[in-house]
């Protein structure tokens, strides 16, 4: 069975190789080939899953050792895979949602002449993401980690002719690299501390290392997670990443890649468990991002950017849960999976809307679309209900558990975290209702564009709606299925460990308050956007709104401090290199030249002058000889 693991990765990798190197010949079948290989990977995943279910909880993990990657004295990095329940969860999510999005893209990218390459990139992403979750050591994980970064870069910048897309892609890669720096330092720390960076040995011996080291490793892993999962302070790339085609936003920047940070923290649970300080920082980062993303989401008029803010906020939930330790890991992953369904669904819905609206993304120019695209409306609506945590739907089950776990943290921290998560829930309800109302309800607000093309909203083709329907099913039922008999907890417990949290207030009270804040959020949004018509031109808004529209000024800060500062630094360094470093050398040369110029004057060409120097030289020689004899 374990030999199948490599096939999981090999299938999409083969697809990527064929599609990217195959040339024009494959243009006509490329998309089908890519989809089939993604589906093949999913099938293999299901087979492995079925096999895994047949075994006991502790024996389910599979290992496959392919070959030694970097065999150097004292440094063993292997290409080896580990498939346990946690990885399995991700494999199914990645290949499942991935396949759906491949199918969706067939329709979405139909008119793009570079569709073959798009599928190549998607397959490359799948391969890299699977490598990330299947790796059995941190270095191989890093391989996958950067691989998904590359795929993300290529896909964000897929429409490279748009300067904004190219810039966004670059920004995403760079910000991620900052996070990667954290991951590589963490790996180096592990190597010097434990002499290895394979999951097993490292995680088993965390207790023996010093607290400082473990905290250091934890914080560096967190930095990595922040980069990949768009957490404060490295969140700025995610909004811009929406420049990519919408299926990409759904797959990479909502369902799978951005959750890699959560995977990393959960996978490294032992390290965080051993360092309460690191855990605290994780929780704080999660909480801050949760609110940050939600606030940004409330202010954006671009439907994809609003959803991106929401993604950030939801991942904040997951990171927060992961930071709570064994009481939260399972729920972090559970929320991750349900979020994968409903957020992918929402993005695909948004893509469907854009598809019908000539790629218009401004929600102020939508309105009343429910009549024109009923399937999109229904699936998007189900996703909406799931994300705001409407009781009974997926989001409710997972989010409610996280809120409970936050309260269960205990002490003042518990209360604060609980309050933050509740506030987040309210905000989620608010901004998602706003999106829903602005898009599908009210009057139509679209107008012909400058060239006089009026959009004709229409329902998307089958290849696009079917994945949306499937994902809508997931959004509705997945959470309930997982919570049934605590099946998800039991499934993951052998890997992540699990403790029941004991919130200071009863679980029922938590649930009740969740529902209450949910209603408040929905109500507020309805009052603002449902009762009165939405202005096509955005009102100026309060200071907070304006700041939130600009991503709470993070980009401005980055621009002023990093970009401008960096420009000045490089420019001055170029100057320094030219004048100072080169100048010293050229100066030396010039001073020799000057000296020679002076000395040249001695060479006046008069034989008598030379004779004087000869004569003087002879005198000096004689003097030296006499002196030597005297001494």
């Amino acid at each position, binding site marked *: 069975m374990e030999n199948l693991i490599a096939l999981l990765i090999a299938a999409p990798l083969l697809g990527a190789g064929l599609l*990217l190197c195959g040339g024009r010949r494959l243009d006509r079948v490329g998309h089908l080939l890519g989809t089939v290989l993604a589906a093949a990977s999913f099938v293999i995943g299901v087979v492995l899953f079925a096999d895994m279910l047949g075994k006991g909880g502790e024996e389910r993990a599979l290992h496959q050792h392919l*070959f030694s*990657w*970097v*065999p*150097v*004295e*004292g*440094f063993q990095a292997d*290409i080896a895979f580990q498939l346990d329940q946690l990885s399995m969860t991700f494999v199914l999510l990645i290949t499942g949602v991935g396949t759906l999005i491949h199918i969706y893209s067939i329709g979405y990218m139909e008119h793009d002449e570079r569709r073959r390459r798009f599928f190549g990139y998607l397959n490359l992403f799948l391969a890299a993401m699977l490598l990330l979750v299947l790796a059995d050591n941190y*270095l191989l994980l*890093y*391989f996958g980690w*950067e*691989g998904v970064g*590359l795929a993300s*870069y290529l896909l964000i*910048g897929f429409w*490279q*002719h748009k*300067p904004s*897309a*190219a*810039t966004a*892609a*670059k920004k995403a*890669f*760079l910000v991620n*690299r*900052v996070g*990667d*720096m954290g991951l*590589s*330092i963490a*790996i*180096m*720390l592990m*190597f*010097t*501390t*434990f*002499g*290895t960076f394979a999951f*097993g*040995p*490292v995680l*088993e*011996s965390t207790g023996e*290392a*010093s607290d400082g*080291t473990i905290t250091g490793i934890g914080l560096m892993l967190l930095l990595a997670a922040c980069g990949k999962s768009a957490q404060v302070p490295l969140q700025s790339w995610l909004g811009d990443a929406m420049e990519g085609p919408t299926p990409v936003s759904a797959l990479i920047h909502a369902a799978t890649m951005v959750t890699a940070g959560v995977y990393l923290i959960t996978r490294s649970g032992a390290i965080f468990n051993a360092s309460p300080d690191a855990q605290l920082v994780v929780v704080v980062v999660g909480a801050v991002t949760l609110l940050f993303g939600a606030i940004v989401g409330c202010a954006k008029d671009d439907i994809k950017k609003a959803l991106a803010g929401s993604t950030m906020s939801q991942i904040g939930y997951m990171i927060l849960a992961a930071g709570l330790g064994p009481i939260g890991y399972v729920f972090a992953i559970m929320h991750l999976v349900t979020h994968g369904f409903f957020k992918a669904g929402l993005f695909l819905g948004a893509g469907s809307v854009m598809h019908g609206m000539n790629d218009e993304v401004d929600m102020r120019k939508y309105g009343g679309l429910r009549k024109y695209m009923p399937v999109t409306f229904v699936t998007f609506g189900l996703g909406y209900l799931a994300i705001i945590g409407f009781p009974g739907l997926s989001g409710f089950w997972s989010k409610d558990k996280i809120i409970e776990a936050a309260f269960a943290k205990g002490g003042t921290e518990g209360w604060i975290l609980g309050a933050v998560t509740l506030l987040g829930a309210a905000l989620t309800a608010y901004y998602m209702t706003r999106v829903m109302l602005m898009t599908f309800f009210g009057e139509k607000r679209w107008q012909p564009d400058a060239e006089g093309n009026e959009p004709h909203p229409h329902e998307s083709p089958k290849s696009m709606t079917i994945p949306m329907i499937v994902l809508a099913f997931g959004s509705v039922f997945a959470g309930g299925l997982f919570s049934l008999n605590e099946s998800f907890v039991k499934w993951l417990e052998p890997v992540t460990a699990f403790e029941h949290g004991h919130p200071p207030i009863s679980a029922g009270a938590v649930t009740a308050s969740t529902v209450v804040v949910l209603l408040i959020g929905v109500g507020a949004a309805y009052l603002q956007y449902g009762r009165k018509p939405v202005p096509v031109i955005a009102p100026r808004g309060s200071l907070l709104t304006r700041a939130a529209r600009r991503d709470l000024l993070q980009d401005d800060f980055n621009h002023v401090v990093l970009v401008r500062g960096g420009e000045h*630094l*490089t420019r001055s*360094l*170029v100057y320094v*290199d030219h004048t100072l*470093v080169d100048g*010293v*050398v050229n100066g030396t*040369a010039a001073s020799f030249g000057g000296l020679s110029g002076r000395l040249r004057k001695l060479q006046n060409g008069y034989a008598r002058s030379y004779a004087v120097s000869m004569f003087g030289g002879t005198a000096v020689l004689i003097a030296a000889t006499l002196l030597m004899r005297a001494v």
Partner: protein
Amino acid sequence: MSFPLLTATAAVPAIGAIVTAAVPAARRTGAKWIALAFSLATLVLAAIALVRFEPGGDRYQLTESHAWISDFGVRYELGVDGIGVALMALTALLIPFIILAGWHDADPLETKSSRWRPTQGFFALILMVEAMVILSFEATDVFLFYILFEAMLIPVYFLIGGFGDRAHAGGDEAGATQRSYAAVKFLLYNLAGGLIMLAAVIGLFVQAGTFSLAEIAEARANGTLDMSTGMERWLFLGFFFAFAVKAPLWPVHTWLPNAMGEATAPVAVLITAVVDKVGTFAMLRFCLQLFPEASKWATPVVLVLALISIVYGALLAVGQRDIKRLIAYASISHFGFIIMGIFAMTSQGQSGATLYMINHGISTAALLLVAGFLISRRGSRLISDYGGVQKVAPVLAGTFLIGGLATLSLPGLAPFVSEFLVLVGTFSVYPVIGIIATVGIVLAALYVLVLYQRTMTGPVNESVRSMPDLKLRELAVVTPLIALLLFLGVYPKPLTDIVNPAVEHTMSDVQKTDPKPEVEAAP
């Protein structure tokens, strides 16, 4: 007596150089084919040497030794360890690609006279450089090495000064001025280094009474050759300075951007991927092996200089407006990594540094040669003259991106393995330096992606609208290099197997052991 394989690897390109140079003016294309054939023959010989080399065997293999200048104990002594044989193979591997890539670089613009034979000269000089570089990787006699180290400056000087980049912003006149400036700067820097090295070589001879590396190393090891600490340090500095100039290390790096900017892309590859490697290789072979104590004494300073090179080179690369100068500064940053790995004196660092030399050779060759193809199409080196190339020449853009990704050490491509090894090796002994060096990977991403964004993406620049995509000859150059990058990125084992024993030898030379991990992890 067995067949002198190592001599043959150097003799074949040397003979090739002479034959190529002797081709009559009218048979220009024939000269190219002859040069290519000789370089391929060299490659075959190098491959044989690589196969015959036994990783677990003696330290120096395939040795040859003949008396040369007996009065001074100078011998013609050759031998390769794992590092030498790997670098020799790299050189032999890259030259055919360089020749292919520079196929039209030296075509005369107009027929000046029947005796005007630039093409023959160009390829003959390249082969001459190859011969000298290969022999310098094989020389185990300090004097022989010194001669080659200096002599290879001459053909490179002519390659820079005589066959510069035709794509010059200021026109032919300014181009010629800049070229000769760059060539002279290259020569003066390296001659200055070489001169100081000469003093140290003589000093070493006075101390040891022989030039043979093996004899000196043995005498050092068993204590019969006892140098005073001060003397050892001075000699070390003499050698190190020359190698640092060649490598190049901050602050003696400024010749490289000029040289690489003004030379044609294949020659720039020759300089940075092949000739400069002699400097870093010599640090491993001579500095560490002959002066272990002094090397350890100098380590902190060298590491800081290497660190400065890494960050400084990367920052300057970001600020460049000229594609080739950008790559040159990137190379300075990479050489910083190599030197850091060498002087970290851990197994990982040194293995990493050796792999880095090879991987950097391949990756820079890939990036720079594609950049050369790009530049030759548009006739400009300025980044701002490009834009949207991806749309008109997707294969060119794709290969350029892969070269760029290799330069920024993306996992899966060969340079990642070496860069990470260097970082780990350094971090395990000097954590702070290791962490600061990690900043280099962010900056690398910055300059590569900025370069790619400005040249390849965005709206199509008018001047590149009719740019053709890569031709067959160019694909033949790029594809094998990329394949090799991918292969060595995932499966570097063949290379590490050869390199590891040599690294162990070096580690025992400097009497260093890797630091023990804090916790003995469960297996």
